[in-house]
């Protein structure tokens, strides 16, 4: 199907949709192409700034969406938070798993 000639009633030119394409979410195109002119973009295509950074980090699996699912069977259960005071000076060890933690000064570049 080629690009339709738009008569522009305010919605722009529209590509004729091939049978079977109707209802497909704009963001789930497997070829990664831009949506046909006149359709809405997905976040993947249009997000910017910090929102885009968060989206890309989530896609890479670096950051969770926030929900806590139980770990698959066989995996270690890490779902309980261990709180303890960390003081300046000597490194301390987590009272549960023994990992070493040391408090150091750090300023973010700005």
């Amino acid at each position, binding site marked *: 199907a080629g690009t339709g000639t738009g008569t522009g009633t305010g919605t722009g030119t*529209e590509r004729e949709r091939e049978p079977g394409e109707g209802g*497909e*979410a704009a963001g789930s195109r497997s070829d990664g192409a831009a949506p046909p002119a006149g359709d*809405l973009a997905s976040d993947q295509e*249009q997000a910017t700034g910090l*929102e885009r950074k*968060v989206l890309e980090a989530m896609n890479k699996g670096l950051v969770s969406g926030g929900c806590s699912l139980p770990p698959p069977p066989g995996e270690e259960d890490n779902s309980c938070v261990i709180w303890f005071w960390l003081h300046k000076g000597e490194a301390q060890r987590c009272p549960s798993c023994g990992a070493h933690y040391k408090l150091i000064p750090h300023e973010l570049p700005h």
Partner: protein
Amino acid sequence: MAHQAHSYHMVDPSPWPIFGAAAALLTTSGLIMWFHYNSSVLLTLGLISMLLVMLQWWRDIVRESTFQGHHTPTVQKGLRYGMILFITSEAFFFLGFFWAFFHSSLAPTPELGGQWPPTGIKPLNPMEVPLLNTAILLASGITVTWAHHSITEGNRKHAIHALTLTILLGFYFTALQAMEYHEAPFSIADSVYGSTFFVATGFHGLHVIIGSSFLTVCLFRLIKFHFTSDHHFGFEAAAWYWHFVDVIWLFLYMTIYWWGS
């Protein structure tokens, strides 16, 4: 790289909050001057400054979100909570007026003739224009849902059609209500019947106008490609508000229009 180690939005300094407060002060004192001293200067100034603050504040929010990307999922979650809390507060606002209606109508005083509607009051027929208005708002609830589905499917053309239809239905409701107000055989001064009727339906009408305006802004943003199929909270907030307005009407219709006749 990152200038902050969190996903919240620390907003830049803005003059709109304090200007908004000043506008609210002008408007409220303007109402007093209008009610008691027959002067509308202060009220006019107040309403104009309120409008200007709203336009510029919300314009800035669109800039911060759509164009600068500050509305991360975390920020959006906060906005959702905020809108839900606001709509809840509006529900309580209307609850008060329903309370007033039932207070007076469940035990009508001798001054009213011991009956409801009071002696001499000819209520509007709930099966005429009010029923049409009910159908209009219910239909608009369907069209706004159609618009939402179109947005999540990325179908801009259908979304624009559905949202436009929703707004037109809202205008139709407002026009019909205005005509009803003009033609009604009773006024706000006609005993507590007039008071409860016009204050409750009047505030509802104001909310229909607010909701229609909100939806209209969304229509402009939709046309200008602000929304994505995943992120369109401004539209969702407008749709929630619109459904709320519809629900309030349903309660008004069942209680004041129907039971109250």
